């Protein structure tokens, strides 16, 4: 399946974005988010960005006040996922101009749209910033 879910959580543990690529009930989601956030928040900067959780891995990175966490299958390339997270952040930065947490909160659908362009069915399908941004801009213009 590749990517199972993508989360953006701030340092206080509040979820700002949650995108799941497999069906989980509300309770499962809440429990999952709680556990993972606790694990990642407990780690410091000198430790590696990979955490094992049940039968998959979490790759995470902190940008300012926001944690970006991606849950992947065991055989996924962790470094590639880290690059993917960076790509996502850069894309959002370019679109919003100096993106911050508030931007994501108020323009959640834009963030979702960006993610949808990049990841389909749990596989990374688009890695070019230009392509992603152009399609978003076109869509905005058309409506």
């Amino acid at each position, binding site marked *: 399946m590749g990517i199972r879910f993508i989360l953006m959580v701030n340092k206080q543990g509040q979820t700002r974005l949650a995108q799941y690529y497999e069906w989980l009930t509300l309770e499962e989601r809440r429990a999952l988010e709680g556990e993972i956030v606790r694990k990642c928040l407990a780690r410091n900067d*000198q430790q590696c960005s990979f955490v094992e959780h049940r039968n998959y891995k979490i790759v995470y990175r902190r940008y300012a006040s926001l944690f970006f966490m991606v849950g992947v299958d065991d055989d996924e390339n962790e470094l590639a996922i880290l690059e993917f997270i960076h790509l996502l952040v850069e894309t959002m930065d370019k679109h919003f101009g100096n993106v911050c947490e508030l931007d994501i909160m108020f323009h959640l659908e834009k963030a979702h749209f960006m993610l949808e362009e990049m990841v389909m069915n749990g596989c990374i399908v688009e890695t070019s910033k230009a392509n992603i941004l152009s399609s978003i801009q076109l869509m905005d213009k058309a409506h």
Partner: protein
Amino acid sequence: MSSSSTSIMDNLFQRSLEDLIKGFRLQLLGESNFISRALEEIRREIKVTDLSTKSTALHKLSYLAALHGVDMSWAAFHAVEVVSSPRFQHKRIGYEAITQSFHEQTSVLLLITNQVRKDLNSANEYEVSLALECLSRIGTHDLARDLTPEVFTLLGSSKAFVKKKAIGVVLRVFEKYPDAVKVCFKRLVENLESSDPQILSAVVGVFCELATRDPGSCLPLAPELYKVLVDSRNNWVLIKVLKIFAKLASVEPRLGKKVAEPICEHMRRTVAKSLVFECVRTVVSSLSDHEAAVKLAVAKIREFLVEDDPNLKYLGLNALSIVAPKHLWAVLENKEAVVKALSDEDPNVKLEALHLLMSMVNEDNVSEISRILMNYALKSDPFFCNEIIFSVLSACSRNAYEIIVDFDWYVSLLGEMARIPHCQRGEEIEHQLIDIGMRVRDARPQLVRVSWALLIDPALLGNLFLHPILSAAAWISGEYVEFCKNPYETVEVLLQPRTGLLPPSIRAVYIHSAFKVLIFCLRSYFSAEESTLSFSAQEFSSASSSMNAFTYESILNLVNVIELGLVPLSGTHDVEVQERTKNVLGFIGMIKQDLAEKLNLQDSETEVFRVTAFMEDVFSEELGPVSATAQDKVCVPGGLELKENLGDLEEICGEFLKPVDSVSYTDKISFSVSKLRIRDQQEASSSSSPPHEASSLLAEHRKRHGMYYLPSQKDDPDSNGTPNDYPLANELANEISPDPFNPKKKPNQSKQRPVVVKLEEGDESRNPPQAKSNIETVNDDESLSRAIQSALLVKNKGKEKDKSETNPNSGQQEKEESSRIEDHQNSEKKKKKKKKKNGERSSKHKSRGRNEVASASEQVIIPDYLL
């Protein structure tokens, strides 16, 4: 934000999502209050017919559901309504809601099929993409089946944007509806040759997933993928292709030879660490037979290991652990880096290093490595300390202690572990101590010595985690008491008042061991006495000669000590402790008289002598390891019905087995049982009691179904002596004879490895539970792979025909191909499209026909191009 009732403003103007968010942020307390009020609003607004209001309400609801865990399944129908709006804004909101909240059980799922179909056929590519995204996330079997034709069309779309997404969706469609493979596979494969990197990336991603599920079915596509591997400069694509080849190469080893060189080339040239890592991982997992590739990979791993970046260090260790089983030299080369990593800050890195060290362990270095690890354990935090202890324990005990040669050293190591402050692995240590005692005869003296040290250490009594170890120590002291230096002291230690700190179950073991020691002492004393006569008891003289001589006074003293120690316990609440205490005190009661009177103790007729001999007999049977399959070896006694179903019981007990509404149910049962007893007693004692109606019915019942009744306390003529049908436990132990010894004699070692008893089968009683395989997914995978295989077969056969047939016949072949696809298409328009496409395709096929010469047979094999 205020808690007052809704104002006119609120009623007239619907709050947008932005307002909601703002309001939420301003909320300091009462979050749930805020949410419930918002929900009320939403419920009102969403029922309105105006689509704009409805969609805004839905939008807010999706937001709350996504981030605050609010259930939105009740709004499913409204989502369907919103999606049908012609406005893109609304559509988007509707689709988002659907994607987020719909799942297999949503009842209104059927309603969206048409809408999705309409949107898939829409001219507006963004609407198409919304629909595709929706399908990819919530696609069910029915949806996939109904929408396969549309997906097929989109796979051929001229807009790359749409094509890419259609490719992405294909995987889900295949998964849920394997028949779609027949339709869509060709187009999918064509895209492998696409020059557009976006498309290529998507296609390769799909094949990556397919290869993971069933590598065999993707094998025929190896040539195309090889080209991608060599030509592509896009790292993402390369990583995915590498993954595919990793899976394929494990199925088809010849493939490995071909791809090893390009992979090494990539490793050498690229700067991107992620690509290097993927190459390394591919090499060590699937190409581990290619020495050159492995060497290069290990060199790269070394580079990772010496980096400061914790990510790279962790991944380097990870890769090293994959390569360890086959190429231990790689691990040994990097031994210092691994040991250094043991003290790293990152717990993940430490764990990886630990696992690596354990993979290096063998007979020669086990003591050295254990020494290093014990030092680390003392310095580490509790979690890591226990991890170390656990891994040492499991590595050493694997395969009945295969790597241990010097058991004396190992047993003292176990004792040392018990003293590590953070140790929590008491149970495992207990298990091993007892296990070694049973299997390795020569280690028993050392075991007794170590147990003694553990028993006298007062600090251990207070540590909850170590109580199991104390239990083992006590058991060993009792069972192998013949190796004890000073049995009297042992008894004192076992019965000291401090043992009150222990839980009752362990105290019971202590008391029982004291009993065994007592018996041993008595027996030795008697045999010592006997040997003064002409009779020499060989087995005891050797032991007793090295111990304090058993004098009459010391025996008497011993008995008194035990009695003193145990009398206070005879009133304890715990059943087990009380029982053991009473056993011992009872025994002492039996022998005390004779002992006190110092009768002629040589007389073998005395009570004390007989009783002692009897008990000694009980304890002298050596306990050995019991195989896990021992139970199966017990033959079922004849006439025992195990497989008959209990349907007959309905007939018999029907009136008793009524539904449990009232308490009278249990009353009835107990009533009838007690009646039975009364009945039996009446029958037995007198035969003149006038039978009540109920009891006569019961008697009737009993006559008819006598075999189902339990035997009564009196002599029951029905009982056929069932207890004797099962063989006695002692007999069983004799049946399970230990394996013929295989002494391992190492020529240059000063000390021989002692004999370790191993059982033939069922030895590893601590197998981890087998991972339960999900039968459903296995079936799905199978059907999917079968579909792929047949699709590829069709493809190959088609190419075959092209090659052998000349042009005039191609028209006929076109018709054949189109008729095959016609089964799946309903509309004429699509048929025409197919014919045109087939024309294109067959010309392509001809140019590639050369390559497909070898695939004449039924089986799908790799064409000559690669071999």
